[in-house]
């Protein structure tokens, strides 16, 4: 077994070697611009792009004409929200989203608020899921869009997408979902889920970085967007710019592989994930799982180790690549807003570790990670004044802490 061990598959995934192989010709001899209509170089590139479009569409139950290529999920989210807000401004200016969305959604909403939109940020329940009644109540006659992520990037919880889609359809409101963490990992079907717009990314599903797509429904309803990047009118005028042919080939291949292997991958990974969880829970007390286990990505585990600070834990398990909700590991020096939204308390947010397993994770790696985490948490608890106080029977909430 080689170290470091990569268990941060929610951040990015390594490219599948089969994806790389499919892409290689498009970095070399097949270099044409897919918009060149009058020679074979362009035709070849166009053929590759259209194949990619087909592969992506197939994975999510869409028509290939409904796929708009972008540079990644952040751009897809920006295009969906800003494009709808601008296009449907006469209909209304209200958008509904959730407190636990990715920053690509939240920061886009903040900008739209500055431009006159009203945004409702639905809270989540302690299990991480939104309350469907709260969504129903939030919809007004000014609401033009609901944007709720498919699966969360930190805690892996899967929102009740099909129910949300049905509510939106019934109320005549467009429904966008940021499905970056879900596509290729769990079945996603834009027809059954009544999704109007869906963002996805290549590098979260064993494809390349720098390429993603936005699904834009063409009928029932025909969704229109105001382009956010102007130029040659590529992608049905919704996103100008010469297409990233090698990236699209890679994303397409990644989708094809996901379609073939998703079921087996998910089964294997949920087994490994549960093995990791069970080992940790058997050896350590005061360990809390963040988010529901019932509606969760098969390869995600997010745990808070009470009385141990996340960054010091990462330091101790430095041959395991994971991420923490601790403020010390973030650029903003704020603990994870997602864990805070669950009502877990800042102290548990500081103590959290996110494990993301993936296609290349082995049982040996999981066992090693479990053992190492257990060992380091035990060591750090020996060092923790909080753990000592709790063991003495002190209720930490009764102590007057001097916040700094």
């Amino acid at each position, binding site marked *: 077994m080689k170290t470091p061990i990569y268990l941060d598959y929610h951040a990015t995934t390594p490219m599948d070697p089969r994806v790389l192989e499919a892409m290689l010709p498009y970095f070399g001899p097949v270099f044409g611009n897919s918009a060149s209509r009058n020679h074979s170089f362009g035709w070849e590139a166009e053929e590759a792009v259209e194949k990619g479009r087909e592969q992506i569409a197939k994975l999510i139950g869409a028509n290939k004409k409904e796929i708009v290529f972008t540079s990644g999920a952040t751009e897809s989210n920006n295009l969906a929200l800003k494009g709808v807000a601008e296009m449907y401004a006469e209909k209304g200016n209200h958008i509904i989203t959730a407190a636990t969305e990715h920053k690509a959604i939240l920061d886009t909403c903040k900008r739209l608020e500055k431009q006159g939109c009203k945004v409702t940020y639905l809270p989540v329940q302690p299990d991480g899921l939104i309350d469907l009644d709260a969504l129903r109540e939030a919809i007004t006659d000014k609401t033009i869009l609901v944007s709720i992520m498919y699966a969360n990037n930190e805690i892996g919880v899967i929102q009740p997408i099909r129910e949300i889609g049905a509510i939106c359809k019934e109320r005549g409101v467009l429904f966008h979902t940021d499905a970056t963490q879900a596509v290729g990992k769990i079945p996603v079907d834009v027809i059954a889920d009544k999704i109007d717009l869906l963002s996805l990314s290549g590098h979260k599903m064993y494809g390349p970085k720098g390429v993603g797509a936005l699904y834009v429904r063409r009928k029932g309803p025909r969704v229109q967007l105001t382009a956010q990047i102007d130029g040659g009118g590529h992608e049905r005028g919704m996103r100008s710019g010469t297409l990233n042919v090698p990236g699209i080939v890679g994303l397409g291949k990644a989708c094809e592989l996901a379609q073939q292997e998703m079921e087996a991958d998910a089964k294997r990974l949920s087994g490994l994930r549960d093995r990791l969880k069970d080992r940790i829970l058997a050896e350590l007390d005061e360990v809390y799982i963040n988010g529901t286990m019932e509606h969760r990505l098969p390869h995600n585990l997010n745990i808070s180790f009470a*009385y*141990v*600070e*996340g*960054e*010091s834990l990462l*330091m*101790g398990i430095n041959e395991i690549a994971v991420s923490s909700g*601790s*403020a*010390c590991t973030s650029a903003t*020096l704020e*603990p994870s807003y997602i864990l805070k939204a669950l009502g877990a*308390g*800042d*102290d548990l947010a*500081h103590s959290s570790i996110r494990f993301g397993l993936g296609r290349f994770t082995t049982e040996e790696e999981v066992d090693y990670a479990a053992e190492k985490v257990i060992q380091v948490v035990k060591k750090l608890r*020996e*060092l*923790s*004044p*909080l*753990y*000592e106080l709790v063991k003495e029977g002190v209720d*930490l909430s009764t102590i007057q*802490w*001097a*916040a*700094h």
Partner: protein
Amino acid sequence: MAYSDKVLDHYNNPRNVGSLDKKDPNVGTGMVGAPECGDVMKLQVKVNPETGIIEEAKFKTFGCGSAIASSSLATEWLKGKSVDEALAIKNTDIVNELALPPVKIHCSVLAEDAIKAAILDYKEKSTANSTAAPVSA
């Protein structure tokens, strides 16, 4: 983020981890920080009442590696110092010794606060004892 060798050394081999008896009149205890801020330091000193020299220092810290290293280093420095010398330890001394980056300066500030809190606690206890002493004598 890369850690300095000294931070790593203190993290891997923390010095003087543990607790002294809070009720001992010669022990001063300082606990600073807050769990929701991500760091809490408990620092304790045991002072020889005859000489005023710190004979023992112990710590326990909930916090990042730099917070652990700052408090571990503080206990090393405290031992053998007089109470007044201990109060002269500045957070910048800790920053320099451990080569802490700017985002970790608050860890050194917390360690300085913990030293001051522990010494203050000891002084309050000893003043209380000395004023109480004649009464009981």
